[in-house]
């Protein structure tokens, strides 16, 4: 082991560079390949309901004429992709084999196989983990953090990076509120203390097959947000 004076004997190189520059170079290439598509990167703990949320909103977006594609990220299995396949939209499963997050290289690799030609919306479902995925830009337009009411209202304070970096928070499984002690107002307050500009939706993915139910379970507001951002992305892309 070198002592401090030996350490100081070397040359000093001033750098001032983004430490994740190599990831971000690839993320920017991904962004270019995404084209006009609005791309959301979903972060959350395992089991918050990311896939259920996609299963609930994709059929509605499809019926409204939007072309959707999905990139799934999991440590093991293609179970989530199989669920998305049932919606008849292009989907690709990234299996990280133990890695706790997606990075730009993995997403770049998925674009060799996934049909995103003409896509209006691309959803990236990151590995279920509120810590590691926050550090890596994938080329998305926004990060969206999903928090289920079963996780407790202190999660924004315990895992602040995910809430700081996300433009949107979806508080999911609100149908369970009657049997829980979770305080939605407290979740909102804690999240906004980390990120005061965060846009917040409250959703449930239960019983969505019932006509008109999307208006009662908060999904419609979230879908409207997505549609607005698709329009915004297209207008920016044309310029």
């Amino acid at each position, binding site marked *: *082991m*070198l002592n401090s004076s*030996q*350490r*100081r*004997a*070397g*040359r*000093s*190189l*001033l*750098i*001032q*560079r*983004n*430490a*994740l*520059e*190599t*990831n971000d170079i690839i993320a920017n290439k991904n962004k270019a390949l995404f084209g006009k598509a609005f791309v959301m990167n979903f972060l959350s703990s395992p089991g918050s309901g990311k896939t259920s949320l996609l299963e609930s909103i994709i059929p509605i977006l499809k019926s409204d004429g939007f072309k959707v594609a999905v990139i799934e990220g999991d440590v093991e299995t293609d179970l989530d992709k199989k669920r998305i396949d049932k919606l008849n939209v292009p989907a690709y499963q990234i299996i990280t084999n133990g*890695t*706790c*997050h997606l*990075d730009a290289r993995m997403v770049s690799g998925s674009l060799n196989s996934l049909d995103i030609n003409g896509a209006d919306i691309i959803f990236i479902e990151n590995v279920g983990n509120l*810590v*590691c*995925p*926050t*550090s*890596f830009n994938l080329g998305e337009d926004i990060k969206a953090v999903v928090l289920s009411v079963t996780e407790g209202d202190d999660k924004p304070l315990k895992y*602040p*990076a*995910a809430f*700081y*970096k996300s433009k949107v928070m979806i508080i999911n499984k609100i149908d369970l509120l009657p049997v829980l002690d979770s305080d939605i107002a407290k979740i909102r307050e804690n999240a906004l203390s*980390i990120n005061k500009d965060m846009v917040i939706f409250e959703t449930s993915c239960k019983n969505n097959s019932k006509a008109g139910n999307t208006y009662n379970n908060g999904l419609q507001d979230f879908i409207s947000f997505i549609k607005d951002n698709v329009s915004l992305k297209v207008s920016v892309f044309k310029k």
Partner: protein
Amino acid sequence: MHEFSIALEIVDTLQLNGYLEGVKSVSEVKLNLGKYSGVDKNYLAFAFQNLNDERFKDVLLDFILNDGDEITIREILVD
């Protein structure tokens, strides 16, 4: 433990920009680390110690902690 990936990204960034050309060893890496970066500085130091790269075998990490989410390489000391 995404800090291993961050450590590899730092090495890649240094390599990509030519800072490691002719370098036998890196004795210190100075970083700016935002409190919302999602990076644990102790795990990052552990990751560097366990990189399969002899040049970083004895590396010491030095951090300036700040607000925001940046992870910036500020300076390196090399031999």
